[in-house]
């Protein structure tokens, strides 16, 4: 007697669930996005905290510095994307160059925020709500930039060893998506800290 399977409904049920690389990559992709979804709750809660405690006020910060680090981070996203495109075109040298630029720009961002902003700010972490919020928001974000830089460095080294191809380079995609996520958070943190409300 032949087995009549139920007609598969119109939903992502794989017709051939035998583990193949494509299936694995799509599963990995879902896992990464679920992680990003989860992590966004942290940053969302920090945004809530900022508006709950400061309302229509914002910390008094050096505007040009904020703009500069923002530009640096956005540019790093551009080079990250470029690197990923190069990898999918099979251009390993192009990938390595652009990844290196991304790492450098990410490091410059960290220097700009932790190295400069934190030192020159006229308030410290213990100076009331604005101190608490500014250092925590930028600190959590900087931590993610830092781990992103580490992730990218590992991917850089592994790419140099020839571990990735144009067809299969999941770790590259993962590092890139993580990096863009870090940029995404700053897209909201920058106006929240620098632009919205009256300076205290």
């Amino acid at each position, binding site marked *: *007697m*032949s*087995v*009549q*399977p*139920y*007609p*598969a*409904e119109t*939903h*992502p*049920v*794989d*017709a051939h*669930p*035998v583990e193949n690389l494509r*299936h694995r990559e*799509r*599963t990995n992709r*879902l*896992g990464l996005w*679920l*992680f990003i*979804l*989860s*992590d966004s*709750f*942290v940053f969302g*809660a*920090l945004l*809530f*905290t900022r508006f*709950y*405690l400061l309302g229509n006020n914002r910390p008094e910060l050096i505007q040009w510095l904020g703009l500069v680090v923002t530009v640096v981070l956005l540019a790093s996203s551009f080079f990250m994307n470029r690197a990923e495109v190069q990898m999918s075109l099979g251009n390993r040298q192009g990938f390595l160059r652009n990844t290196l630029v991304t790492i450098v720009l990410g490091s410059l961002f960290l220097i700009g925020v932790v190295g400069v902003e934190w030192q020159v700010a006229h308030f410290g*972490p*213990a*100076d*009331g*709500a*604005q*101190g*608490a919020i500014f*250092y*925590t928001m930028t600190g959590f974000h900087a931590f993610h930039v830092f781990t992103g830089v580490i992730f990218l460095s*590992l991917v850089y*080294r*592994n790419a140099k*060893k020839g*571990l990735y191809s144009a067809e299969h380079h999941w*770790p590259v995609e993962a590092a890139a998506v993580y990096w863009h996520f870090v940029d995404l958070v700053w897209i909201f943190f920058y106006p929240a800290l620098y632009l919205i409300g009256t300076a205290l």
Partner: protein
Amino acid sequence: MKTGILSIGLVRGLLFQAAGFLAGVAVVTVIRLAFGMGFSAEPAIVLGAFFSAIGFMIGVGAFSGWFANALGKPAIPPEEVEEPSGFKRYLGVSYDHKVIGVQYGMLTIAALFLGGSFALIFRSELVAPGMQLIGLQQFNTLIGLHGMVAIVGMLLGGAALGNFLVPLLIGAKDMAFPRLNAFAFWLAVPAVVLVLSSMAAGGFDTGWTAYPPLSIFANMGMQLFFAGVVVFGWSSVLGALNIVATVLRMRAPGMSLFRMPIFVWGSLATSIIAMTATQLIGLSFQLVMFERLFGMGFFNPANGGNPILFQHLFWFYSHPAVYIFVLPGFAVISELLPVFARKPLFGYRWVAMSSLGIALVGFLVWAHHMFTSGMEEYLRVPFMYTTLLVAVPTGVKFFSWTGTLWEGKIRFTVPMLFVLGAMNVFLLGGLTGPILGTIPTDLHLHDSYFVVGHFHNTMFGGFVFPFIAAVHYWFPKITGRKMSDLLGRITFFILLPSFWIQTLGQMQVGLLGMRRRVADYDTLPEFQTTHIFITVAGFLVGLAFVIFMYNVIRSAMKGEVAVGNVWESRSPEWELLPNPAPKHNYPQPLVVTGDPYDYSLTDTEYVELVPVAGATD
């Protein structure tokens, strides 16, 4: 070569945890000394705590696959890793979801036992007015730890059920991310150690909710409590993420979402909550940690902060958390009733959707914990409405269960007893919810023992009873043996009436004005008599649990061998697999050929194995 005791992952992990702790203390001390600041215990202990968790993970071997990846070396695929045989397998890293499920289960039972024991200590103190047995700080620490350890136990229990069952129920050979699975489990162990170690650092007097400003000024034990919970939160998030990915990506052919066994829906809804909301308790605790360590003004008004902010952040997780506790339990009830009533699950799609509905509405009710907090008044009524609304999807489940039982051929097996007990107990718990969810009554009952009665009711009905039912039910699939039927019945018939006495006593004394979290109370006869009843009942609940534990351990070693489809279930793990379930589960892919709950149709199957190539048609 690792030999002897060091070959046991758990042992190595604990040793490395101690080493990591010392390393963290050393790092902070050296840095402080280099900057001309003196030794300070609290920052040293905090960094020590986080380093200790990392140390544990290195020691147990949970990082090995990723270390290899980072170094560009190929890691052994999880399915091909050789694992030790026998009980030792459970004491180290395993990538097999069934092993991990059992590991979670063992930790669950340990946590429930420990958390329950803490309760018995302070309940003994509460038998009479005056302080006879323990001091005030000890009392406060014990109630706080009872709460958190019990919560941890329930989170672990949901993870145990989800991890063991989901791949089996959807026809997969393992979870989507086996290494992440092992990692998430093992994170829970150092986390629990940290939480318990708060007792060695002076304890804490805030209760498990750790409200600032008090938590800002509490003893150093508060920091270890915070660190442990934050680490445990990561375990929760990663484990839940794995379940969501598994359910969405690893189902057998033909198994659309509406043809999954109902338990998977419950696990999916639970995991969506756990994966997202947990971040907020982690953040809220970290912010208090920062306030203590760096003087950051989040919650202390003297420092520009707002204590209500903490409550919003905290309860945004901690209310949905109760649905993390009960949704797996409800799913167990839905899964088992058809088997023991020999009838289809009534309203399968509604039940499936109700799990998601509870998860969604559960995110919208948190401020009902804050009606008396002094938050803006205009927030109260909307939260009352949403709170009452969550009874609707819950009601859907109750009506489904009633419909499933109606005119069924009921088999009063031990799992069924616990399922019926769960429904019975949760019904009262659920009915006492609206009393608390309604602002006028809550203003009187907030922080009273009535609340304690309500939530123990819902937790036992929604988690404890179903968990025991699930262990009895799936025990043959896990171990190949049956649990003792007699001991199971004894457990049930001690647990159910004792729990009723306990919970009614708590509610009564709360209505009379007994506050919660107080170590002592006025000498009023109406209080004291009931307190005696509550304590004695609590000990009987503990006795029932100990009998259950004994049953589990003894049956695993010497229980009657269970052959075949012991419960005559249509579910794939019973239809198609022997006891215990083999490694990698199904030998061939399985395919869905019928509905999961057509118990009345005797000649249909739900799932079949794909025939081997070359078989005749």
